[in-house]
């Protein structure tokens, strides 16, 4: 049988891969958003694993809400990205320093 620690370590590995992705792709906002999605999926896997092993469905309900919020976040994030590209002509993080004093 697969133990709970296997699932938890799997999601920890995915979380770390998402983190490395943020470090590596720190100039590209689209890939940054995708890495955030990867981290969210890792967290959701944690919730579902605990929900399964503890026999409590509240974890799955929580995942449902996380998916909702993440979908809203992506929609607004990509809208901001489109706006940024329209105004700056690039989505490189380095061009978004207008607020720098």
């Amino acid at each position, binding site marked *: *049988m*697969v*133990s*709970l*620690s*296997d*699932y*938890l*370590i*799997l999601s920890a*590995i*995915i*979380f*770390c891969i*998402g*983190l*490395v*992705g*943020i*470090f*590596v792709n*720190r*100039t*590209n906002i*689209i890939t940054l*958003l*995708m*890495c955030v*999605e*990867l981290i969210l*999926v890792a967290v*959701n*896997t944690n919730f*579902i*694993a605990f*929900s*399964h*092993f503890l*026999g409590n*469905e509240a974890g*799955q*309900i929580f*995942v*449902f809400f996380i*998916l*909702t*919020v993440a*979908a*809203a976040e*992506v*929609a*607004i994030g*990509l*809208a901001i990205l*489109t*706006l940024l*590209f329209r105004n700056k002509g*690039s*989505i*490189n993080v380095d061009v978004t320093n207008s607020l720098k004093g």
Partner: protein
Amino acid sequence: MSFDQILFYVFSFWFIAASLAMIFSRNAAKAVLFLILAFFSAASIWILLEAEFLAITLILVYVGAVMVLFLFVIKMLNIDKSSLRAKFASYLPLGLIVAAIIAAEMALVLGNNQFGLEMMAAPARHAADYSNITVLALQLYTDYVYPFELAAVLLLIAIIAAITLVHRNEGNRKTQNIAEQVSVKAKDRVYLVSITTPNKEGK
């Protein structure tokens, strides 16, 4: 090794491989496709954990809507690839060190000594007539109905915000002129004309 374990390791392998390919791929469109593979593997693992509804939701909502939105934006923006990868390697060692430390710490905390099968036995599989959707719906529409409504309002706000952000050419926008609406008189809107109706004989 049981069949469950074989499935778990196969799905985990593809999950991790697709995630690594996603973060190291130079092309954003390819990265989206790898992320789709990662989401499919994640959904498979969720099905192993008997969360069928969420697994299907992940595929329908994420692969079907969110990833297509990503692809749409990537194709629409026509990004210059060379400028985005200029500093590719500079932060890689630091990121690898941080991630390795986090992974090692988590493996220590989440290892077999704390969450192994001896500490937390695997629950028995549900019967064939068990419905994950029914169980979730019973919770969602009773105990969690208020957060559910709030999530709906949140999605509405997201729709309005996204449309407001990217909408342009204000000249075509349909708006209300409140002063004009308040100061309108009845005779401006309705005027009566007297017409002669013919009687039955047509005279």
